[in-house]
């Protein structure tokens, strides 16, 4: 999808894709890699730090700082690894797939530059198993690069496919999965920079972060840092979905308002409906109410608004949507994807789903509302990784912004939004239970 903003990640694509090596080189491709290889690794890291690149996967950690945490080869004589997190599974987020499909060589050039910066000879791209097309595009691009002498510079890039587990987007779960284990998060410390893949120093970076390294070297750190806003430099690829006319990806300068994205670029809310709520950063970002539509899409503004930029997936909800149903569908997702390792998440996500379902079914009481918030409190901050926390934060933010709706479910004995499109949606976790019930009935018969 074409973007109307300033294009840095998608620069030179004219709305299309650059999938042949010749084409990419003709547009100046791999010049930055040559430049980077003439610099000392620390100098490359320094430029990324000066550009103030923040991780695009969700946590917004400064990329240059992350790289600087890796010990030197003299300090720790082990191989260094670059692991790219292409396990994009956050509901509402679908930017990395388009980056891999449309600018595969910019992404792969970024991999090689990053590998140089952290002195790695092996790069593992962990790509979610459902992404058929992005995988094929990257595989074809890599084949073309193999045929070009010296381009890879002794670096091996391996495409490693996941197999359907949201939790593998968490960096230590991803490393476990990549080592051939069940994808369950590790305790930290040690952090991956010290003991990551195969207990060796490892940098784990998101696809968009890596692709952005190329234009940072091209523009120079100072010029790149001028784009966007302070503490949230550059552009972001925003994924727009939900009740909006033109869903899709839009690369925009950080700081652009939600209003501009939703109404100017996204064409507004269809069928004359009103805006009710916005999830600004992928499902795990706390919900904003519709009157916060003038908030800037950047790290400081969204944090101040009580949410987060996360993975920049913007989900728009119109006035038909029931917020209890939104919280319920979200909670069922986390329940399904919980890896089961730690109790607050494994049990808490299920409790939240059951309490929200009771509200929907008209079985909820005012005491259940207290219990709901109590469960959120008992989950948040008590898990090994952010999965359980996310469920608690999303549910709590829904209650904070739309508490009246929760109370109305109790007082009216059920859902006051008969036209909500989120009504009675069959989530995988519900399907499993329905299937089990069906089987038991068969046995009885």
């Amino acid at each position, binding site marked *: *999808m074409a973007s109307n903003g300033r294009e840095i990640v998608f620069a030179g694509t004219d709305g299309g894709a650059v999938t042949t090596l010749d084409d990419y080189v003709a547009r100046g491709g791999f010049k930055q890699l040559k430049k980077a290889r003439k610099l000392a690794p620390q100098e490359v890291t320094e430029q990324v730090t000066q550009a103030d690149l923040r991780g695009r996967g969700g946590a917004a950690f400064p990329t240059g700082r992350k790289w600087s945490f890796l010990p030197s080869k003299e300090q720790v004589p082990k191989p260094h690894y670059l692991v790219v997190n292409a396990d994009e*599974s*956050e*509901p*509402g*987020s*679908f930017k990395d*797939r388009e980056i891999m499909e449309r600018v595969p060589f910019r992404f792969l050039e970024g991999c090689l530059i990053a590998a140089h910066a952290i002195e790695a000879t092996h790069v593992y791209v962990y790509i979610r*198993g*459902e992404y*058929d*097309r992005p995988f094929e595009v990257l595989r074809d691009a890599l084949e073309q690069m193999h045929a070009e002498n010296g381009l890879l510079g002794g670096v*091996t890039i*391996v495409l*490693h*496919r*996941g*197999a*359907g*587990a*949201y939790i593998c987007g968490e960096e230590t779960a991803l490393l476990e*999965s*990549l*080592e*051939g*284990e*069940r*994808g369950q998060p590790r305790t930290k410390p040690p952090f991956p920079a010290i003991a990551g893949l*195969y207990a060796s120093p490892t940098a784990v970076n998101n696809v968009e972060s890596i692709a952005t390294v190329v234009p940072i070297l091209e523009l120079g750190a100072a010029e790149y840092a001028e784009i966007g806003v302070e503490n949230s430099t550059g552009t972001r690829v925003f*994924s*727009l*979905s*939900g009740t909006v006319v033109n*869903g*899709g*990806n839009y690369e925009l300068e950080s700081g652009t308002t939600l209003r501009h994205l939703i109404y100017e670029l996204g064409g507004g809310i269809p069928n004359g409906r009103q805006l009710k709520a916005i*999830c600004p950063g992928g499902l795990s970002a706390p919900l904003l109410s519709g009157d916060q539509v003038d908030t800037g899409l950047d790290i400081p503004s969204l944090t101040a608004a009580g949410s987060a930029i996360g993975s920049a*997936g913007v*989900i728009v*909800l119109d006035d038909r*949507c029931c917020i209890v149903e*939104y919280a319920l*569908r*979200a909670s069922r*997702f986390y329940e*399904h*994807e919980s*890896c089961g390792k730690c109790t607050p998440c494994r049990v808490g996500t299920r409790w939240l789903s059951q309490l929200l379902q009771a509200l929907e079914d008209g079985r909820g009481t005012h005491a259940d509302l207290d219990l709901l918030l109590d469960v959120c409190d008992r989950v948040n901050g008590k898990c090994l990784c952010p999965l359980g926390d996310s469920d608690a934060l999303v549910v709590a933010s829904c209650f904070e912004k739309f508490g009246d709706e929760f109370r109305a479910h109790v007082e009216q004995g059920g859902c006051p939004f008969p036209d909500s*499109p*989120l009504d*009675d*949606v*069959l*989530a*995988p976790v519900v*399907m*499993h239970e*329905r*299937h089990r019930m*069906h089987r038991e009935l068969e046995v009885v018969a």
Partner: protein
Amino acid sequence: MKALQDEIRELVPLYADRRSAVLPALHLAQHAHGGWLPEAALEEVAEALDVTPAYCLSIASFYDMLNLEPVGRTVVEVCTNISCAINGAQQVLEAFEEELGVRAGETSEDGEVTLGTIECAGGCGWATVIAVNHRQRVGVQPDDVRAIVEELRGGE
């Protein structure tokens, strides 16, 4: 299944530890065994990588895309996460249930088709996203379902 095991062993040098090859190997084995992993498949992977079949089972049981029960020749999956649901994923799913004559989570009696739901498929802006034999299609509306099912039947 010599060919499968040779293919699996080729994966090993890509990693510092052969266990890293288990997940890609299970993908290959599932493909070679008609879309699921019977015990024989787990044993083949185990033998090729010098791990136990139980180890392979513990990995396979963790991941949604690896099936431990038989599936139909055609597998249709509908994303019902929030952005797709808001745009009518439930109606798309029900249209498939009607056209295919199976309920979500089930395989047709003739073993031809399995229908299921999946969590976010990563195409939220182009709802509804479905996957047919793990090939994604986007922008599917309930009205499109009849033609899709006819196409699947025609392709047999």
